[in-house]
């Protein structure tokens, strides 16, 4: 299919469907704004699914459209350009589904993929623990099998985005008692609505609570709800993290373009656009965004000649999270003293959220410090200590 025609098809569909009762969702949702309209955003997921826009990259035999990368990218860009809301189903679509397609059993694929593709079942990610941030090898949540073969869980996960809006959680837990590090872990699929699970919201510095702590006290899941073999959970977890970067990063940049445009609009409206220092910083923000964009495009280039670690992929998380944090600070400097007050203006309010929430960007999914270690060790071959 011609990319230009495809883009037009997406844009037309978005213009027709992101309207009426869905109009209030424009540019809403996503990290830092996940509390916005959760019920309506689930309905929006179903609308998207009905339009055939979920699972664009999945193979056809799993109900996907098997579209090439360029068209997946075009979809993300047009989606955000049209103001498409943050995807409440993204963990299922972009993490759980590719993992099941790659490593799940045919039964698991039949059981879970349709629910994800149709926007009926939502997923949360159970990796982090209070004592184990980026150090997944320090996981202490335990799991074991009862006589009937069902898996049981005991422990606590933390920073689980949207667990309170989800039906399922995937959990990395220690299945071999006494094992340490990466050994003896298992990867389980666990229903959230059961007596052995309690979900406690974590109130963030923004005042909102899109993350949770999830407590497992003898929670259960069926015998076949394990991906990979018992003890091979590390391998599955790492494969899943590999899906985290991908075409969705370029869609994320369209959100960033939108946010920068909000900053520009505010600066022009309140006169900050005349301040020479602000002008330099706005230009710099645009320059940084181009860097992210071209780096993202390079990350997706097809280079079959090289098996080396791709530097542009290694640096991406560190680069965007720092850029975003800077943008938040710039936004507040542009807004000025009015920023002290929670704004009723949607654009200003959005920028206030960016400012506060972006403090988390450089922490979640591997802190800056962990990212730099990874870059140095994997990208530059610096020796471990």
């Amino acid at each position, binding site marked *: 299919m011609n990319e230009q025609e495809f883009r037009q098809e997406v844009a037309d569909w978005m213009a027709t469907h992101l309207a009426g009762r869905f109009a209030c969702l424009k540019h809403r949702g996503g990290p830092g704004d996940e509390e916005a309209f959760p019920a309506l955003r689930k309905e929006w997921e179903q609308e998207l699914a009905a339009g055939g826009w979920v699972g664009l990259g999945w193979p056809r035999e799993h109900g996907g459209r098997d579209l090439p990368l360029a068209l997946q990218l075009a979809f993300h860009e047009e989606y955000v350009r049209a103001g498409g809301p943050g995807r409440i189903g993204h963990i299922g679509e972009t993490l759980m589904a590719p993992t099941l397609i790659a490593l799940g059993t045919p039964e698991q694929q039949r059981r879970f993929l349709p629910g994800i593709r149709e926007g009926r079942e939502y997923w949360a990610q159970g990796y982090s623990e209070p004592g184990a941030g980026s150090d997944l090898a320090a996981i202490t949540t335990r799991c074991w099998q009862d006589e009937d073969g069902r898996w049981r869980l005991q422990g606590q996960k933390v920073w689980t985005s949207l667990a309170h809006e989800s039906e399922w959680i995937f959990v990395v837990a220690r299945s071999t008692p006494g094992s340490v590090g990466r050994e003896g872990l298992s990867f389980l699929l666990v229903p959230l609505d059961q007596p052995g699970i309690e979900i406690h919201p974590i109130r963030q510095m923004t005042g909102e609570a899109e993350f949770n702590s999830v407590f497992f006290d003898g929670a259960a899941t069926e015998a076949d709800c394990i991906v990979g073999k018992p003890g091979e959970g590390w391998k599955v977890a790492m494969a899943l993290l590999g899906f985290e970067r991908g075409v969705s990063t370029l869609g994320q940049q369209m959100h960033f373009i939108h946010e920068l445009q909000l900053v520009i609009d505010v600066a022009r409206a309140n006169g900050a656009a005349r301040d020479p220092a602000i*002008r330099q910083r706005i230009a710099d923000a645009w320059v940084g965004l181009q860097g992210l964009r071209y780096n993202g*495009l390079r990350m997706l280039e097809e280079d079959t000649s090289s098996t080396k670690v791709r530097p*542009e992929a290694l640096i991406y998380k560190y680069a965007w999270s720092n850029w975003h944090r800077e943008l938040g600070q710039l936004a507040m400097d542009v807004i000025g003293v009015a920023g002290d007050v929670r704004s009723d203006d949607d654009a200003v309010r959005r920028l206030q959220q960016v400012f506060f929430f972006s403090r988390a960007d450089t922490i979640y999914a591997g802190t800056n410090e962990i990212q730099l270690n990874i870059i140095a060790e994997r990208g530059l*071959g610096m020796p471990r200590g």
Partner: protein
Amino acid sequence: MNLTLSDEQRALQETAADFLAAHTNARKEVDVDAELWSRIVELGWAAVQVPEELDGLGLGPVELVLLMEEMGRRLARTPFLANVVLAQTALLQAGSAEAQQGALAALAYGERTATLILGPGLDAAPASLTVKARRDGEGWVLAGEAAQVLDDGLLTHAYVAARIEEAPGVALFELAVDAAGLSRTPLEVWDLTRPQACWRFDEVRLTADARVDDPTRVLAGLARTRVLAALQVAAEQVGGAAQCLQLAVDYTKERVQFGKPVATFQAVKHRVAEMMVRMETARSTVRGVAARVAQGAQGNGLDDAALAAEVAAARVQATEAYRYCAQEAIQLHGGVGFTWEYDPQMHFKRAQWASQWCGATSGWREALAAHLLDAA
């Protein structure tokens, strides 16, 4: 948009990397490296952007970027920047068809080696041009001084952008370096790999056919030349930054302190990782913008404002990445990093040179800000 390099582009890059690693030595105690330059010409690199109908290779900005990255990495001392990136581009963008016909192949195959004279630091704004042209019968007389010209002694020709005195305007002239009335005084530069000279034009008389511009596009063409040159200088900066990173990684792996290679210290790892983030981001931007320019050349539209904005991004990223990486390479070498014997100082000087030529980043940022903020 696809940033994947073709097999031919990859091969060009690998050839350039291998050749330059074997044949350059920025530390040579000579002012010029005529042999290196003639070998580069033999390899065809000076013909990459000359169109096929003018006997060139008909390639474009992406190939130039790959070459410039490798030359920046090795601080290759050749007239490539002056002759290819500046003189050829000026002819392509602002030259008349007749002038292109004669000169481009000569510049591509070593019959002629030229530089371009604009305002200080390659400023193309008419007000900053310091050479004036006056009509003299059918011909012209050039007068004035160009304080800093890229001139490594290998030149045979120069293309001079001059202000026309009588009728306000700008013209591009071609002259040989042995023209009567022209004097070239080498300057004591900090960056020894980028020689410069002061050129005085003391009533230099030229015939009518020395004027080589197309008057309908000379102003826009020279402005575009500066922007396209800035992109290539950015590529050179990326190559230099990459080399600084490599030097720092290699040195910290070797250097032992407190019983361990300093490369094992997290404080050191974080510094080199930060260098890599900045360098790779700049590299992505430079290559992406070059691909965008190449696409535009095929008729996919990139007007002057959009081109300038794209290049501004490459320019700012590359300038800051190179400065940062050069500074960090010195720091990570410890005491020896401050000595003449080690390479970081050469890159530090080149980084400083590059930060000012083609315009400082503050100017590029302000132009961008005007584009983003001041439009109606």
